[in-house]
């Protein structure tokens, strides 16, 4: 599995499409256990990130992802801005100067991203957050040759499991037991992000 600069660009473009299409639903999920702006924040951030990608001709994956990280930090707002921004920023450090990534190189970036989210959010898996999608997806990628359909299924299944968790972090944690039986909005947007990656890889193979 080789992840080219084109696949990475398509990843961002597809992620943006998904955030736009699920904007209302993400905000609805957030309304239940947060402040109700997650969909709008993610849609605004990814739209700006993709505009930036189209305007700039980044020549390596590190600069492409770093530019996206800086835009997400500036434009997303809410807690997702620093979290997604840090994830992309940490990954971009690992991908500096590369115009194509082997699966091992891609995995290193994802490991750095997950560490970044944990440090920034002072969170661990199991607390009903985006980490409950990022961590199982990372484990899948560490131990299997990436297959687009499996990647997407792993992200989806992990997102669905957040429904029965009790929120330990963020504003949802103020809801305590009440947070159970709601899907975490950050887990849902993370699922969309990895589904977008699966689709970007699928197109490349086709």
């Amino acid at each position, binding site marked *: 599995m080789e992840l080219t600069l084109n696949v990475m660009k398509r990843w961002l473009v597809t992620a943006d499409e998904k955030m736009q299409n699920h904007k209302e639903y993400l905000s609805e999920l957030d309304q239940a256990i947060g402040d109700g702006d997650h969909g709008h924040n993610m849609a605004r951030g990814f739209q700006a990130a993709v505009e930036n990608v189209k305007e700039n001709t980044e020549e390596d994956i590190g600069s492409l992802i770093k530019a996206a990280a800086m835009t997400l*930090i*500036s434009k997303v*707002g809410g807690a997702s801005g*620093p979290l997604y921004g840090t994830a992309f920023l940490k990954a971009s450090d690992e991908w500096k100067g590369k115009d194509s990534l082997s699966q091992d190189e891609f995995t290193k970036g994802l490991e750095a991203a997950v560490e970044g989210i944990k440090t920034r959010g002072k969170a661990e898996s199991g607390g009903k957050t985006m980490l409950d999608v990022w961590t199982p997806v990372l484990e899948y990628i560490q131990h299997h040759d990436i297959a687009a359909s499996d990647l997407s299924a792993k992200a989806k299944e992990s997102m669905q499991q957040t429904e029965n968790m009790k929120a330990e972090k963020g504003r949802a944690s103020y809801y305590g037991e009440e947070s159970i039986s709601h899907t975490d909005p950050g887990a849902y947007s993370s699922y969309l992000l990895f589904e977008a990656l699966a689709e970007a890889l699928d197109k490349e193979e086709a």
Partner: protein
Amino acid sequence: MNKTAVVIVSHSEKIAEGLNDLVSQTKQPDVHVFSAGGTEDGEIGTSADNIQHALQQADNEAGTLVFYDIGSALMNAELALDMLPDLKGKVEIVNAPIVEGAYVAVVEAGMGKSLEDITASVRRQQFVE
């Protein structure tokens, strides 16, 4: 000599500016207080860019104390500081009730206390019984 500066990070521009007004009442000469409230569009939220700007404005030899409110405020404050490696060691982000913490800090900064002393003093306060 420079006195320790204070940066207030809040989701609300009005809270950040209102708190700035409140602490200014103590009339501490040469204690500079900077507000980083709301998003870039003036909406509810915090902005790493706004916080970076405030940290740069506040930068001085005696250092800067940062007080913050809920949710993303701390994350964005830490992120802003990560992006300003030159300020490492000159900025202390303090976990305290934002109003009481900033108030104590401004009074003590006025007395010319150091960044370390003020941080310790704020942490010693029992704000909640």
